[in-house]
């Protein structure tokens, strides 16, 4: 579980750090290393969940291709679950 690289496995620590700090209201707020890794995991789960649910929706409609409307259908529940 030493994936620092964000390409194949998930988000890079630096990217997550910048993403969070972009939206912090206080300039002094920082994120510690473990929290960054955990947030990266959380985001990875979020993306995979979105993709998997959309795929499930597409398959339920007997399609092989996941399109944006499938994402739209699963989006409300996804956001509630997160």
């Amino acid at each position, binding site marked *: *579980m030493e994936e620092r690289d*964000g*390409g*194949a496995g*998930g*988000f*890079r620590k630096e*990217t997550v750090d*910048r*993403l*969070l*700090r*972009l*939206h*912090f*209201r*206080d300039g*002094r*707020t*920082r*994120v*510690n290393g*473990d*929290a960054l*890794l*955990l*947030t990266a*995991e*959380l*985001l*990875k*789960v*979020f*993306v*995979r969940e*979105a*993709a*998997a649910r*959309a*795929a*499930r929706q*597409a*398959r339920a409609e007997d399609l*092989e*291709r*996941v*399109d*944006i409307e*499938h*994402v*739209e259908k699963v*989006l409300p529940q996804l*956001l*509630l*679950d*997160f």
Partner: protein
Amino acid sequence: MAAARPRPAAPGGKRRGASSGGAMEAAGGEERQLLIQRLKAAVHYTVGCLCQDVAEDKDMQFSKQTIAAISEITFRQCENFAKDLEMFARHAKRSTVTAEDVKLLARRSNSLLKYITQKSEELVSSNMEQKERKKKKSSSAKAGRTAEEQEAAVAESEDSNMA
């Protein structure tokens, strides 16, 4: 001419003041926009990779618009996460967001909370392992003698064989 220059400086000064204030805001805004574009691109790339994994897993294809949509949604969700995390930390009277704050973020789904808590424990134990390794290194460095270092190296390699 010399007199003319400072004169227009008065109304020009106002204009310059306003425009330099505006220019600085615009520059800050531009920088921020640039940062946002770069971050969106980074997110899009990783989302693409993750969707590729899921596509292979489920034997389905994702349209480009789908990946773009998930990427946009993820980017926006980060804003919610960031604001929540900042508030959690502030609520605990801290200015640094910690793992505890992230766990709180994952509270809405039991399985998600369990997963994140498990990851957090893995991190804690790997951090402790790193500290142990550092202690060993620093203690063998303090000893300083070659013989002792060789012994420590042999002991460590034996441990790794046993592990």
